[in-house]
């Protein structure tokens, strides 16, 4: 990454997105990855925070609050679209560590990392995009711009 300017770079780290069985996916916060994260010349860390498996925002927020956060705020493996109010609340929690400009909203992972085993279908995925956009509108009204 060193020396490549003019494009935003991100690192996405997740704990598995191949099954809808949450208990077979990995659990734990990002504490043990912090030394590696710190050493990387990356603008944004795109992380999972939509399920309890991911741990607290404080772990990365306190250590790397000067970088951007791609806040995983929807679970790509469920059928129900998230309530925008819940996304707003999670983003506001992130504001303890980040400025509004540093926070991006995204799903925890892709909706279909493996072509033959997509973890979702199109209609729920579309509904989830709408939830994020609605949450972003509320957040922008509250925090300027």
């Amino acid at each position, binding site marked *: *990454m060193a020396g*490549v300017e*003019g*494009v*935003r*770079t*991100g*690192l*996405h*780290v*997740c*704990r*598995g*997105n*191949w*099954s809808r*069985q949450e208990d*077979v996916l*990995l*659990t*734990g916060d*990002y504490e*043990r*990855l912090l030394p*590696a994260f710190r050493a990387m010349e*990356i603008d*944004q860390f*795109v992380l999972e925070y939509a399920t309890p498996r991911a741990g607290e925002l404080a772990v990365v927020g306190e250590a790397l609050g000067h970088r951007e956060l*791609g806040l*995983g705020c929807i679970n*790509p493996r469920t059928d129900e679209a998230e309530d925008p109010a819940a996304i707003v609340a999670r983003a506001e929690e992130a504001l303890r560590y980040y400025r509004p400009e540093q*926070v*991006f*909203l*995204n*799903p*925890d*992972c*892709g*909706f*279909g*990392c*493996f*072509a*033959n*085993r*997509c973890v*979702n279908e*199109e209609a729920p*995925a*579309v509904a989830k*995009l709408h939830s*994020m*956009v609605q*949450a*972003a509108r509320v*957040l*922008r009204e509250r*925090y300027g*711009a």
Partner: protein
Amino acid sequence: MFTVTQVGSWPRSRDLLRALRDKQQGRMTRAEFEAVADEEVRRCVAHQVEAGVDVVVDGEQRRDNFYSFVTDKLDGTRLMSLAEMLDTVPDKAAFEEMLTTLDVPASSIRNPTCTGRLARREPLAVDELRFVRELTDLPVKVSLPGPYLLTRSMWVGAFSRAGYDDKTEMGDDVVRILREELIELRDAGASFVQFDEPVLTEIVMGDEHDRRTFM
């Protein structure tokens, strides 16, 4: 602020899955496949634009999976099923048990195995980017497999030693290829390039750090 985007992949339609299978089995030409995929990307981008997403993705519609697709683009690679790889795993029973325990769809996951010296036949994702940029003026995010994921998954000693002495030597080429790609994507107008490293958590959270798993 609060820029809305995605991580990368979008559900595949039945038509696309059929086309992907036909392409992989040689029943469909690449051009025919790309025409099907073009339509799927159009729909995927339209959904994002209509929803009001700020930075759009192509949904990885052209990819078998988020890292195995590099076999379409790199010399010295071969798309391999986990079943084929199973023959090279020292403890076959333990590997099979791991797949079952973790609910890994072994028949659905294919690996980009290194089988010789790696070289870019064509860019990994510049075509994906160019096509999305024809559809919208919104900024575009492109996802790429990270260097650690690629190095770890591509190295299957029994095959990869045809091109490299060891994994580290191959890894240097992986890093060089990804760096060239990042620069080309930037020059082609990418707003955001994201590297995917799902295996990193497994290294620090899994029980057995050096055991080969399915990625």
